[in-house]
């Protein structure tokens, strides 16, 4: 081969290497598709993954996750993702039906409830159907404790690194920043709650979703319904609850963002308690409550102001 021919050969080789490098970069630049069945976990993965992830919220803010069922379109979206986030502890009663789809499509499943210490939840007054929301004995609303959310944030960070090792530096940096923000949030919550005398720390809510919050900050919960929004209170239970509210001199009763507050309204009318405002129990809301920090700040401010 002549010198000119060799030069052309080297040029072609460089061109091919450059093409391959560009193709490689393109693959890296493609965001990781993450489907989420939890509004809280969607917020966490957005914080940690930033521009390296594309988050698809299957369960959207304001939806009642207790009665949510994924559509065939949702199954398709999940199958086209690399990662699926779920709360677990029985919150998504349809999760077992999804598992074969995940295995077939190679979608990695991250279940928040797997890394928290579950507490027992009350479950009464409803029958469990095969398809709809069914519980074990564990309370699935783990996000009502900031320390639990810190554990789940670490779990999500590790899952992203496993899927996309090239993004490790970004994920670790963002996870550390989120950890610091959650630390500050936890301290802020403690500094707000400390203003409430302990005898006032009684939460009357639509359903038993604030167990982790109650455990962490020393509240007693008097729920109208059981742990699911589909639990229906008996008239005897409502009468007993009214008696306990009067006996404890409870100052306020809280409604939830995605429920019909009619029964709570009736209880409020029969006791001296006033409506305390709306709190977010099953996930994120909109506006200020559209992020995890915003939701916790909204709930805590509402509770402290009403029970002071």
């Amino acid at each position, binding site marked *: 081969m002549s010198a000119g021919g060799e030069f052309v050969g080297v040029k072609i080789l460089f061109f091919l290497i450059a093409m391959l490098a560009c193709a490689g970069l393109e693959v890296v630049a493609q965001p990781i598709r993450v489907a989420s069945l939890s509004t809280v976990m969607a917020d966490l993965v957005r914080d940690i993954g930033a521009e390296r992830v594309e988050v698809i919220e299957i369960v959207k803010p304001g939806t009642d996750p207790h009665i949510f069922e994924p559509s065939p379109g949702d199954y398709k979206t999940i199958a086209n993702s690399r990662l699926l986030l779920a709360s677990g502890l029985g919150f998504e009663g349809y999760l077992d039906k999804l598992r074969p789809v995940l295995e077939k499509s190679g979608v990695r499943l991250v279940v928040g409830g797997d890394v928290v210490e579950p507490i027992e939840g009350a479950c009464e007054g409803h029958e469990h159907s095969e398809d709809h929301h069914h519980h074990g004995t564990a309370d699935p609303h783990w996000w009502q404790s900031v320390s639990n959310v810190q554990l789940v944030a670490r779990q999500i960070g590790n899952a992203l690194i496993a899927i996309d090792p090239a993004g490790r530096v970004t994920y670790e940096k963002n996870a550390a920043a989120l950890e610091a923000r959650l630390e500050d949030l936890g*301290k802020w919550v*403690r*500094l707000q*709650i*400390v*203003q*409430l*005398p*302990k*005898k006032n720390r009684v939460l009357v809510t639509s359903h038993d979703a604030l167990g982790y919050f109650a455990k962490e900050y*020393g509240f007693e919960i008097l729920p109208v319904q059981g742990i699911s929004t589909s639990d229906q209170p008996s008239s005897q239970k409502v009468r007993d609850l009214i*008696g306990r509210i*009067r*006996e404890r001199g409870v100052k306020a009763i809280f409604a939830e963002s995605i429920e019909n507050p009619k029964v709570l309204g009736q209880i409020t009318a029969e006791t001296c308690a006033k409506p305390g405002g709306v709190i977010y129990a099953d996930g994120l809301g909109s506006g200020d409550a559209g992020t995890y920090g915003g939701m916790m700040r909204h709930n805590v401010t509402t509770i402290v102001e009403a029970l002071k």
Partner: protein
Amino acid sequence: MRGSPFLRLVLVVGALALLAVPVWRLTRPAPSSAPARPESAVEKLADYRVTMKASAPARLQAMAANQPTASSVSGVENFEAVFSMSAAEPEDIAVFADFKDRTRSAALRVTVEKGGEVLVEKTFWGSGVVEDVVMLPTK
């Protein structure tokens, strides 16, 4: 029907009054099932001594629900406050240190004692302002 109308009226009123007693007994509202608060339930109080030690000069403060806030002057390293609270279920205590030098890392050591016994000892770290909550155990 014969007889004096007045006598008949008295008899009817009397019969109605006799009937009214069992009817009232059956229909009166049930007494509250809530147990009356016994006299012994009057809360016993205990003194909780809060000792704060700062790593550098600062303004120190301790607060608890239903208690007046205890504050030091600026530039102190030690401060003590006593709160009189329920012996069985004391309130948690919020502590606050505003350091003169806001650029350096600082620490605040807090000890809470009741009757000479140390209940909680904690150190908080930060820079500029250090604030947090000391949770007190309940019986």
